[in-house]
């Protein structure tokens, strides 16, 4: 029983991070009908940029952590806008395959750049512990403070994202743009602004995911974005591309499948990705629009 609870907790933590990345995929797909494959690497970039702020943290612990979060998020958001202008917008009118390949290669370039140019970038990097250590147990279930912090930040970010998209005028512009580009422009929505905001928002979420990844696992490495990218995409797909709640649900579901395969299937940890991806393919076969998605990838 403890075991199940503990593993559930593991899955929830993992799911929080997957969901944060998955939302970005969903947002980009919803607004621009693109898959931004370097998104996982953007998340990795977030973690590495946060590392630049380590001296500040050692000086002012709490304030320093806040500065690190905000600083890294802002920088990555700007980079996200930059990347969209460089790789995604020029390819808007081309077949999807080009965008896919261009963003995949952009991810490769980011990854290689970190490996080659970040000091010691080939090795895993120690990530500062910014949340209080320790924890408490309820009936054999151990819950750590950092888990609670990460979960709280994750949930707060989910709620904030949903509120931004559903309640603010910017969010309304994004939604309008995603439903009918031209009509939204006729209502005074600036296309470039929507794209910039979308990419800033999605990249900021990815940066948060990267930083939370760092604090949770306490180390980061340049390759971490590749897997989180593919898993984030899969999670967003299971949930239904274009739907933010779908991405969140998909992220948790994917984490839940992986964790339970590892934890409860004898010898399963070897095949956890095989099973998780297999489930995803089945999903696409029997419910191609995902759990909460409403529309197909290709509109006719």
């Amino acid at each position, binding site marked *: 029983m403890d075991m199940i609870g503990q593993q559930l907790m593991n899955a929830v933590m993992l799911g929080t991070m997957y969901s944060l990345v998955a939302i970005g995929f969903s947002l980009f797909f919803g607004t621009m009908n693109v898959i931004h494959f370097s998104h996982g690497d953007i998340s990795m970039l977030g973690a590495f940029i946060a590392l630049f702020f380590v001296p500040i943290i050692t000086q002012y612990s709490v304030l320093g952590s806040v500065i690190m979060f905000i600083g890294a998020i802002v920088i990555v958001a700007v980079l996200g806008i930059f990347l969209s202008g460089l790789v995604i917008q020029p390819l808007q009118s081309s077949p999807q395959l080009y965008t896919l390949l261009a963003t995949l290669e952009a991810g490769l370039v980011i990854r290689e750049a970190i490996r080659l140019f970040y000091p010691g970038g080939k090795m895993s990097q120690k990530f500062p512990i910014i949340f209080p250590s320790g924890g408490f147990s309820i009936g054999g279930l151990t819950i750590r403070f950092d888990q609670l912090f990460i979960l709280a930040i994750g949930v707060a970010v989910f709620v904030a994202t949903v509120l931004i998209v559903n309640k603010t*005028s910017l969010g*309304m512009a994004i*939604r*309008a743009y995603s*439903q*009918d580009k031209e*009509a939204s422009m*006729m*209502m005074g929505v*600036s296309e470039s602004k929507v794209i910039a905001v979308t990419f800033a928002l999605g990249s900021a979420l990815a940066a948060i995911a990267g930083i939370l990844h760092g604090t949770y696992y306490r180390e980061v490495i340049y390759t971490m974005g590749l897997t989180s990218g593919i898993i984030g995409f899969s999670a967003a797909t299971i949930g239904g591309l274009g739907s933010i709640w779908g991405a969140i649900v998909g992220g948790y579901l994917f984490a839940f499948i992986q964790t339970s395969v590892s934890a409860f299937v004898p010898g399963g940890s070897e095949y956890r990705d095989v099973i998780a991806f297999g489930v995803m393919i089945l999903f696409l076969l029997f419910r191609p629009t995902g759990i909460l998605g409403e529309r197909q990838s290709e509109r006719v």
Partner: protein
Amino acid sequence: MLEINGLSSGYGKIEVLHQINLHVDEGEVVSVLGANGAGKTTLMRTIINLIHARSGTIKYRGKDITHLKTHQIHALGIGIVPEGKRLFEKMTVMENLRMGCFLEKNERVIAERIEKAFDMFPRLKERKDQLSGTMSGGEQAMLTIARGTMSDPDLLIMDEPSFGLAPVLINEMFSIIKRISQEGKTVLLVEQNAWKGLEISDRGYLLQKGEVILEGKSSELKENSLVKKAYFSN
């Protein structure tokens, strides 16, 4: 108010509009008539720069808007009712109306305008929390017009508002357009239904193969043999 000189535009290698000259004066209702494929919608889309002009100029209140972006053109006070009920289908009626005055930040003004829209289209009030995509064709058409007027534009560009509507609704539609113009708005109306269009407009242009072949007072156009031949003989 709106002045178009020597405008040409098109898609890819194909030029659709050739040297269009057109003007709309303050307070007027001007209709652009033409058969399918005459270039009416292309004209509309070029005015609001969804298609880039190849040559010629578009001036609004003396200001050159040829190369402004769509949203900037809208911000100058031009309302647009696009062709084919381009609603935000996954938004409610309320949200669609709010999108119509997206640039207006004053909540009180917005509330007033929504009130006014509901006044004009009582049907929409009943459906205000319904997703627009789930409404009937007529209701959608009404919402499209209501949304277009939400920004309280000086000039309203309407692209075939009657398209695909039942005859009863078409009449209702035109009476609404008339009402809008009576409230002092200038209207540029693109219509396939020439008779109805000319009935409510002051002046009209006849487009054929991307060229203006005829222009004049609506009453005169109605009597013109060319128009008659094009529209009323069959």
